[in-house]
């Protein structure tokens, strides 16, 4: 659903931590590719395998990044909240989502049109230079988080597991 609340997108971006420190003219260029949207709780925001034609900046609410397997059904891997961004498959060919995502609460977001954004970055390398490290920062943080989750840090100590103690 397209958002009816009219607030300049530049202002929304200016106040969002992902864009912190970016100059106004750059935010204006980015805003030219963006719209605001609200998702009702339960709305499927991304579908694994579908065309990654946008990226999402969360303003409020909560979205769960999920993976579906035949054995375990839909498993949430991570929840994202205000201040987070969702999706970078739009940056990497073949531009397909590698996970699904569902709104857990009514969620408000800024949505960027990926082809428009790719063209803007192609035409303005300085804009790309300022935007890309932000994505790399988010990717590295998510990778680190995923590794910690994989480590099962709070599980029984390896020795206890092997000896059937826990």
């Amino acid at each position, binding site marked *: 659903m397209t958002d009816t609340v009219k607030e300049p997108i530049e202002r929304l971006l200016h106040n969002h931590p992902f864009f912190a420190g970016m100059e106004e003219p750059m935010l204006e260029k980015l805003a030219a590719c963006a719209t605001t949207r609200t998702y009702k709780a339960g709305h499927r925001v991304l579908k694994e395998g579908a065309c990654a034609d946008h990226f999402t900046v969360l303003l409020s609410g909560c979205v769960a990044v999920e993976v579906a397997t035949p054995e375990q059904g839909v498993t949430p891997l991570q929840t994202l909240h205000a*201040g987070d961004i969702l999706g970078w498959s739009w940056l990497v060919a073949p531009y397909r989502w590698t996970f699904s995502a569902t709104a857990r609460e009514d969620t408000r977001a800024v949505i960027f049109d990926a082809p428009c954004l790719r063209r803007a970055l192609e035409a303005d390398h300085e804009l790309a230079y300022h935007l890309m490290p932000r994505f790399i920062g988010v990717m590295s943080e998510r990778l680190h988080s995923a590794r910690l*989750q994989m480590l099962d840090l709070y599980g029984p100590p390896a020795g206890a597991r092997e000896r059937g103690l*826990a």
Partner: protein
Amino acid sequence: MSTLATPLKGHAPPPEAPHPAAAPDPATDPMVPRPFRIVRVKKELSDTFTFDLVAQDGAPLGFRPGQFNMLYVFGVGEVPISISGDPAVPEVLVHTTRAVGTVTRAMWAMKAGATIGIRGPFGSAWPVETARGGDVVVVAGGIGLAPLRPLIHTLLNQRESFNRVMILYGARTPEDILYKTEVRAWRGRFDVSAQVTVDRATGGWSGPVGVVTRLINAGGFDAPSTTAFVCGPEVMMRAACDALTRKGVARGKVWLSMERNMKCALGFCGHCQWGGAFVCKDGPVFNYAAVADRLPVAEY
């Protein structure tokens, strides 16, 4: 001074009065355990349980939040376990333990009415007083909530002394959330922000999913005035301390609790040595500024 010190010249005890083999006194000898009776056993999780203990001599065991005791299962062995009760209620000594090996497994099998030996309290404490007037962020991971619970009790008992109080807790799954009733009560308070995240969502969990550092990244505290207290597995503490300092919390205002194998708990045997420190005596609570360089060192 030790009673076994060499007598001064000319002051040797007379031969008619041989030195009696004095029975060690638990009240004065920190190597001798005091017997405590288990008055309640609560199974918290599939491998974790809480003992409520009362001293057989009736004398309460006062302690400061963050300190630990040595728990002696007679005939089996002795282990360091943090005190997890309310320091304002010293008559009942509370320990939450996870059964992982020989001694803790033997404790798991013990029932109310049984006797256990206690030495302590030992070690440094969470410096609650340094947090007064500012924001407080408590970051716990897994069983790490147990050593932080006395601190949380103190913060809530003296709530007006602190500005914002945040409790950020990471558990393995929703079934592994420790002290569920209490966590729910903290979440229900209007003057505390208590957030729980799980590494793996199961059974219709509708709360946050992801590592506890993500809750730190979300902010909600005034970094310059914040004091943070962190306890959990070492890897988690490293990530949490890093996230806190990246948010602007000064290293000198971040505190963490370390674990090392122990024997004497008195700084004599060197079993718990960690760099230049003994965890039993200089810790277990350390200031992050003092140990940050040592923390990322893998000891294998």
